[in-house]
């Protein structure tokens, strides 16, 4: 069966949109080449212009980019005009519509006579689409001498084919409320929870597992192993946690298999053995340490899953060398498989960054979450397959599984929208009613629980992430299910504020009660659109109006420095909506599906369930790595009167940019009330005196927190560090924001702080 003619439609649409924005094509004297001047980059990070020359000294937060368009597809040769006095210790990344090359910058000598043009290779340029061209300096590194850069030159073969176009505007988003473009604020009505706190203990829970039916074990970041009998938790008083091992080195994963206990410590996978049977562990058997490590604080072994006689876990990359040479010890960022008896070690996947959670999904699929940052333009849930490479790179020598085209995640978890630091994924059991077989994961910054529905398309797992539940004190990191379906969730925190750490760390019991909730349950991709399943049927006659669904589509561009971004971001494309006979599903016929993109759906809060229930949340993000073939969704004409109604499903008030940006990029770590989070409280910050520290000299000085200070901190967080906070704790989010967005964010912080 032939595919519907979606692509030509899209191309013509994009061409139409792009035409008014053509800013450089000189049609009177058409040329086959196109200049991309430094002065036209949409982001320069903390670097500066001298005339029409951009002097690049800082990599962190700098992604220099342009959008270009070709009327017809052709191969172009790319070259650069630059000077560079001395050799650099790392390569620049040139990304051309997602195709990456690395440019080893050759020294040119000094002065104006040193300008040279370097050939950066040839690329295939697609027709019609706005194509992102990026020149990305080495991550995090600051150089004493600049790379002086004037322009890139694209040389094609067809006169007039290439145009430099304006940066596409961020599409307008509908007004937000909790669950609809904004984080939920409350616990899911189908869940009840108990905060199992022992106020005398600060338990940063780093690993959890059941030993038998009634005994929960958990490790803490500080190196202890505790046990608790679950029946005893129903009694009065603080939970009777019992420490049964200590002296572990930053354990981040715990697994129990046939009575054996395995812990993933900072630098080794360890079996804990109680040889004398006294209940305490006196032998720490090193199962494997067959990978190099350094003293980097960020090198961990994350999670622990036992199956088929092997222990599976992931290891994170280091962060301390980001400002130097981005060195990584070999084999970092891997999924590691270790035989439980022999310790034989295999590296089954690579390209991970901060994979702080591993678990089993539907069908036994091994799932890993990973955190946004260098080479990860958003957070991810990945399906681990043998030989997969998930895109994080360091300087050479690279991971042996590194390859030019990375394995896509099963589900993108957009930063600030639905995740910030995702943690362990767990499969919901049968006792969780309609959610059985779904995956939930925690988040040590965004908080709460997010839910994922996965389906197999073309042999690979992909699916959608949904808002699920907030309203917990703890920032969940690890999970264990009791046989009765109770979910035990352990919270953790990083940072240096003991009050904050104490508040959000600890144990919570979450129980599914079966309470009815009206919300989107699942999403399944068809050849011609997306089918959304709801937890309860829609009210009769509702759901047929395409205007009740606001869609956005985008892809992602990974960059070697922090600040990978959305590309091809556009809205619309719902041709029709068809409600199933039982009214539990709606098929959205889409005109704009492209493989490899995220489809974000906002559902109108005006839709109601058959009992008159209001939607609790109306949002999902589907990752369409593959579009199924010959699996058409059924399209029916709406019944009479189904499109009637005068209420607007979405409002676009505008002026909400600052608040939404704050929510997406800042709220996980900075509060606007007096609740301490990982970063400084921003309430009332404007006009106050702040103690800041120069990270180079270590000297502290007082400054006034004004708009310029906030702007500087957004663009270059390490430049004026708030006293008491370490370097690199805050990412350089300015790299992915436009000047206008930064203005809106600063204004929002200042105005909100006055309230």
């Amino acid at each position, binding site marked *: 069966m032939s595919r519907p003619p979606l692509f030509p439609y899209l191309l013509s649409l994009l061409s139409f949109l792009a035409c008014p924005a053509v800013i450089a094509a000189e049609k009177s004297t058409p040329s086959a080449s196109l200049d991309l001047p430094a002065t036209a980059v949409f982001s320069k990070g903390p670097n500066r212009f001298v005339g029409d020359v951009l002097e690049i000294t800082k990599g962190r937060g700098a992604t220099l980019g342009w959008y270009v368009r070709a009327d017809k597809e052709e191969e172009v040769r790319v070259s650069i005009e630059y000077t560079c006095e001395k050799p650099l210790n790392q390569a620049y990344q040139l990304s051309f519509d997602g195709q990456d090359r690395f440019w080893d910058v050759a020294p040119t000598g000094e002065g104006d006579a040193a300008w040279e043009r370097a050939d950066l290779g040839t690329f295939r340029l697609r027709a019609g689409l706005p194509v992102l061209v990026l020149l990305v300096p080495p991550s995090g590194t600051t150089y004493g001498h600049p790379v002086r850069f004037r322009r890139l030159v694209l040389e094609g073969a067809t006169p007039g084919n290439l145009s430099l176009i304006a940066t596409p505007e961020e599409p307008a988003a509908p007004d937000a409320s909790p669950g609809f473009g904004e984080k939920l604020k409350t616990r899911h009505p189908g869940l009840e929870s108990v905060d199992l706190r022992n106020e005398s203990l600060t338990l940063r829970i780093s690993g959890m597992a059941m030993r038998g039916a009634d005994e929960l074990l958990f490790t803490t970041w500080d190196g202890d192993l505790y046990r608790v009998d679950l029946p005893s938790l129903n009694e009065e008083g603080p939970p009777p*946690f019992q420490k049964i091992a200590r002296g572990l*080195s930053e354990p981040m994963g715990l697994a129990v298999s046939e009575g054996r206990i395995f812990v993933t410590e900072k630098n*080794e996978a360890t079996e804990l053995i109680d040889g004398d049977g006294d209940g305490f562990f*006196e032998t*720490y058997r*090193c199962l494997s340490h067959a990978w190099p490590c350094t003293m980097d604080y960020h*090198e961990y072994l994350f999670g622990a899953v036992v199956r088929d006689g092997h222990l599976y876990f992931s290891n994170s990359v280091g962060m301390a060398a980001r400002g130097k040479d981005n060195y990584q010890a070999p084999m970092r960022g891997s999924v590691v498989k270790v035989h439980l008896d022999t310790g034989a070690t295999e590296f089954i996947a690579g390209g991970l960054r901060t994979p702080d959670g591993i678990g089993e999904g539907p069908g036994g699929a091994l799932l890993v979450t990973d955190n946004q940052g260098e080479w990860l333009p958003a957070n991810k849930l990945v399906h681990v397959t043998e030989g997969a490479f998930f895109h994080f790179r360091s300087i050479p020598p690279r991971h042996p599984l590194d390859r030019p085209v990375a394995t896509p995640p099963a589900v993108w978890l957009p930063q600030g929208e639905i995740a910030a630091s995702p943690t362990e994924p767990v499969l919901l059991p049968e006792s969780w009613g309609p959610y059985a077989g779904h995956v939930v994961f925690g988040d040590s910054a965004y908080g709460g629980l997010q839910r994922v529905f996965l389906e197999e398309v073309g042999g690979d797992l992909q699916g959608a992430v949904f808002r699920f539940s907030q309203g917990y004190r703890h920032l969940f990191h690890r999970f264990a299910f009791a046989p009765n379906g109770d979910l035990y969730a352990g919270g953790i925190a990083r940072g*240096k504020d*003991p009050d904050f750490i104490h508040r959000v760390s600890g144990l919570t019991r979450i129980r599914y009660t079966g309470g009815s909730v009206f919300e989107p349950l699942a999403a399944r991709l068809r050849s011609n659109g997306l089918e959304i399943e709801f937890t309860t049927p829609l009210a009769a006659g509702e759901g047929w109006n395409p205007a009740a669904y606001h869609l956005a589509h985008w892809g992602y561009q990974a960059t070697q420095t922090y600040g990978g971004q959305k590309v091809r971001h556009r809205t619309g494309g719902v041709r029709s909506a068809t409600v199933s006979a039982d009214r539990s599903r709606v098929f959205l016929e889409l005109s704009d599906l492209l493989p490899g993109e995220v489809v974000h759906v906002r559902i109108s809060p005006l839709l109601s369930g058959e009992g008159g229930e209001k939607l609790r949340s109306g949002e999902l993000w589907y990752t369409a790595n593959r579009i199924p073939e010959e699996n058409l969704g059924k399209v029916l004409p709406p019944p009479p009167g189904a499109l009637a109604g005068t209420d607007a499903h979405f409002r676009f008030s505008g002026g909400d940019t600052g608040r939404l940006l704050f929510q997406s990029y800042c709220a996980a770590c900075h509060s606007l009330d007096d609740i301490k989070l990982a970063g400084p409280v921003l309430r009332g910050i404007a006009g106050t005196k702040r103690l800041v520290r120069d990270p180079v000299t270590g000297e502290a000085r007082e400054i006034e927190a004004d708009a310029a200070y906030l702007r500087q901190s957004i663009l270059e967080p390490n430049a004026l560090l708030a006293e008491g906070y370490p370097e690199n704790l805050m990412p350089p989010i300015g790299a992915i924001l436009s000047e206008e967005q930064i203005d809106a964010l600063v204004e929002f912080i200042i105005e909100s702080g006055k309230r």
Partner: protein
Amino acid sequence: MNRFLLYLACLCLLNSLPAELSAEEEAALPFDPERIRRLSLDGVPRSLSIRQGESVWIGYDLERATVMKIWRAPEGKPGLIVSNFTTRSSGEILRKGADKEDRWRWRRDGEFVEPAIRYLGCSQREGHFLLSWELRHGNAILTLLEKATFKTGDDTAVRQLAVEGLGEGDELHAPGLGTGWNPLTTTLTGSKWHRFVLQP
């Protein structure tokens, strides 16, 4: 007060509050941090430190199966300073570690070979910790054991080493022993325990 010190003080306070274990039970737990620290020592990521007697500490490089350093804590002060999940030795150095070039050598069938080393773990036993490594050359495997006693009685360093799997007439030569130790030898033979005392 410096925020970092405040943080440390608060953490110490929180962790010193009563847990469910009684003091006796806590003391009975293996891996007392006053006796052993499995966090990295002095910038060596895979290392641990064991205190012998009252004030002598021995630091082990687990990847090389060697002693990194032996030192005596300053009087009345700890010999290990813990910071951000790492440790730093403090006090008088009694013995520097083996040079990087000084490695385990296995005289096997009359020829010296350099075995590959794999750390196997650490176990607390009555009065000592037992460290073990696998030493491999081809298909041949030895198990190296080191008994790190924490009740020496006197205030000097004692090392006790044994090796399992040596063939008849084979020897294992230990890095870092010899000069300054009694006995002066670096050779391990058979499967018996060899005891070495650091000379003042």
